């Protein structure tokens, strides 16, 4: 029974551990996972603290339905105050860690303080203990997991850990499990490193009961059928997320060489088809998932022969590829292996490295600034492994890149470089070029963790679906089938925020939402599954309200900790200033229009019940039950 899972509070400074039941009231308000983590962070973090100070707090959680019979109920959330943005730090990963933590009896872990030497947490069947991790410090993400399993003597142990990048306080260090599962964005791993927290090991045999077992099983089958019958499930199952690239690169919706062009012209070598031909080694899936969108890869010949891993994703294709102007698979795979090894966000790295290459090309920096490195685009593939290692160990120029956008700009001290570094609220931009897609632009501009697509991207907006279909998915119109239009897009973002907030709080995968297909499960389905498994009754509207509450609390966090207001809800200047240089006629020549963007932003704030500055009004806070935060229910 999910409701019997506990929360553990671990004070790393004193070593004291406290285990508590999770108040049902909090489940009713936030469900669990990311939602409850938002509550915990807002309540436990000392306002205004330095993200790398002991006063920062880390949460690790599985969702309300983690480990249950709901398909793909294996997502894991880790949150903190971000060392990149000073705002809401939040990352989410798949794999098998959080179900194991759930079977060990826990849905939530809260870490406060700082250990005086490296430690790891061992969670097993109701027990929580801190163990010495000095022998693990300096080990990469692959070794750490293996060594812990050997030490504790059980191959079934799941481990969540950080690598050398976190130990060296690379601001975008991440948390990892398995071969490539990554809680990538906002630098959560860096905070782990600052607290000397190396890993969490989990192993459990405490089942997650069902209130209505047969109904839960039957409904899980229905849900699974609904998911598997979509066209996108088939595409994901075969090509993984790389199926998206065939669309976005063809149209011209990607960033090539930072922002110099919007498409790979020499694309033939970097296709998923080429990958299948030469490197594909199998297909795997996360806990309980029928979509199995993950590849396994292996390099069979050449200097990297024998190297293997999981992935690549669409993000890998571009972060280790097109964004840096790299178009050969071996460089890309090698790069992805190294970020998985050292444990840092490849999106953040690629964004800031691409910036460095562009300002080098433009003469804003030279070899004196880079410590002798000649950052020429044509050499990016050749330089990539070296740069990745320099960032992981903060060596030379890598030390500047490791600071992330805001601090790297400050340290460099060249105002003319700022224009070329794409970021929103201090989080680096994604591989996508949102100039022709107002909905997607609004999404990244307002995302509660900085520039990011996973807070609210309505990817189906790109499919030119009939208006009737969009109205059904987005709870009413007016809607516009054209992705270049500004009509109805604020509503799309608002609805998607709720969709993602709820799915991250129940702990199932976003790929089983209306992210990619209008036919996927939504609030109605979630309400049923929650009922059969936990007995808790929510109407679909009540779930939407929970989504709104979670997102608003994240917004409040950002206002309190980073003073984020309307001025921070904009895409980079380049989106307004530079027209799309190439690609298909539908995108070429387009710029984001400032006036229309502002109107969309106003519409978006109104939908949320926020004022013109993007601050939640008193009435909105009362309606959502947030006016007494921090409320310290636990």
């Amino acid at each position, binding site marked *: 029974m999910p409701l019997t899972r506990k929360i553990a509070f671990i004070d790393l400074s004193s070593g004291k551990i406290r285990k508590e039941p999770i108040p049902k009231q909090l489940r009713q308000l936030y469900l669990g996972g990311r939602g409850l983590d938002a509550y915990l962070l807002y309540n436990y973090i000392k306002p205004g603290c330095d993200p790398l100070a002991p006063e920062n707090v880390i949460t690790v959680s599985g969702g309300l339905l983690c480990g249950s019979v709901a398909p793909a109920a294996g997502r894991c959330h880790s949150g903190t105050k971000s060392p990149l943005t000073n705002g809401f730090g939040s990352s989410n990963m798949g794999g098998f860690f959080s179900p194991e933590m759930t079977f060990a009896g826990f849905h939530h872990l809260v870490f406060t303080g700082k250990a005086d030497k490296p430690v790891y947490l061992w969670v097993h069947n109701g027990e929580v203990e801190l163990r010495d991790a000095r022998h693990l410090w300096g080990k990469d993400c692959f070794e750490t997991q293996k060594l812990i399993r050997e030490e504790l003597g059980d191959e079934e142990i799941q481990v969540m850990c950080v690598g050398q990048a976190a130990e060296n306080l690379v601001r975008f260090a991440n948390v990892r499990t398995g071969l490539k599962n990554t809680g990538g964005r906002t630098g959560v791993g860096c905070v782990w490193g600052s607290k000397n927290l190396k890993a969490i090991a989990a192993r459990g045999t405490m089942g997650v009961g069902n209130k209505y077992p047969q109904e839960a099983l039957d409904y899980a089958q229905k849900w699974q059928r609904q998911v598997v019958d979509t066209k996108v499930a088939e595409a994901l199952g*075969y090509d993984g997320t790389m199926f998206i690239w*065939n*669309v976005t*690169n*063809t*149209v*011209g919706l990607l960033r090539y060489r930072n922002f110099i062009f919007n*498409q790979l*012209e020499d*694309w*033939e070598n970097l*296709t998923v*088809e080429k990958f299948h031909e030469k490197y594909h080694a199998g297909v795997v899936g996360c806990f309980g998932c029928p979509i199995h969108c993950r590849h396994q890869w292996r390099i069979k010949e050449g200097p990297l022969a024998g190297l293997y891993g999981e992935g690549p994703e669409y993000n890998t294709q571009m972060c280790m590829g097109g964004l840096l102007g790299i178009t050969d698979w071996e460089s890309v795979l090698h790069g992805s292996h190294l970020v998985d090894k050292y444990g840092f966000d490849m999106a953040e790295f690629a964004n800031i490295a691409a910036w460095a290459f562009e300002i080098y090309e433009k003469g804003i920096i030279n070899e004196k600034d880079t410590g002798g490195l000649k950052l020429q685009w044509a050499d990016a593939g050749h330089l990539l492994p070296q740069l990745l290692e320099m960032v992981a160990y903060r060596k030379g120029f890598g030390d500047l890149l490791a600071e992330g956008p805001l601090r790297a700009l400050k340290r460099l001290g060249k105002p003319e470089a700022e224009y070329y570094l794409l970021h929103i609220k201090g989080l680096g931009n994604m591989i996508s070029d949102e100039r022709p897609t107002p909905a997607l632009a609004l999404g990244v501009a307002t995302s509660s963790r900085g520039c990011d697509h996973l807070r609210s991207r309505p990817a189906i907006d790109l499919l*030119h679906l009939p208006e009737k279909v969009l109205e059904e998915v987005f709870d009413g119109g007016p809607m516009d089938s054209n992705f270049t239009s500004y009509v109805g897009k604020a509503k799309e973002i608002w609805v998607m925020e709720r969709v993602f907030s709820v799915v991250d709080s129940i702990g199932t995968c976003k790929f089983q939402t209306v992210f990619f297909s209008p036919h996927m499960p939504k609030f109605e389905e979630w309400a049923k599954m929650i009922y059969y498994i936990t007995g808790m009754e929510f109407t679909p509207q009540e779930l939407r309200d929970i989504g709104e509450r979670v997102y608003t609390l994240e917004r409040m966090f950002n206002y309190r900790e980073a003073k984020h207001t309307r001025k921070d809800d904009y895409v980079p200047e380049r989106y307004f200033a530079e027209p799309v240089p190439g*690609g*298909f*006629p*539908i995108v070429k020549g387009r710029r984001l229009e400032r006036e229309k963007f502002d109107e969309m932003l106003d519409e978006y704030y109104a939908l949320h019940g926020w004022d013109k500055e993007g601050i939640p009004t008193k009435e909105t806070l009362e309606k959502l039950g947030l006016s007494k935060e921090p409320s310290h229910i636990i």
Partner: protein
Amino acid sequence: MAEEQKVRCLNCFVRITVPPKAQKLTCPNCGVEYVMAWRGSQAKIAGPAKK
């Protein structure tokens, strides 16, 4: 008999019939050109044709 393959033009969104095993495809409506890929008998767009 394999069913007729159709893809959606990514520029103007009309549905285009894809001849079996076609390596290139031009949209009859807006003129953009594609390079095609095949997974068995299933057609998909691989990328834009070079100008």
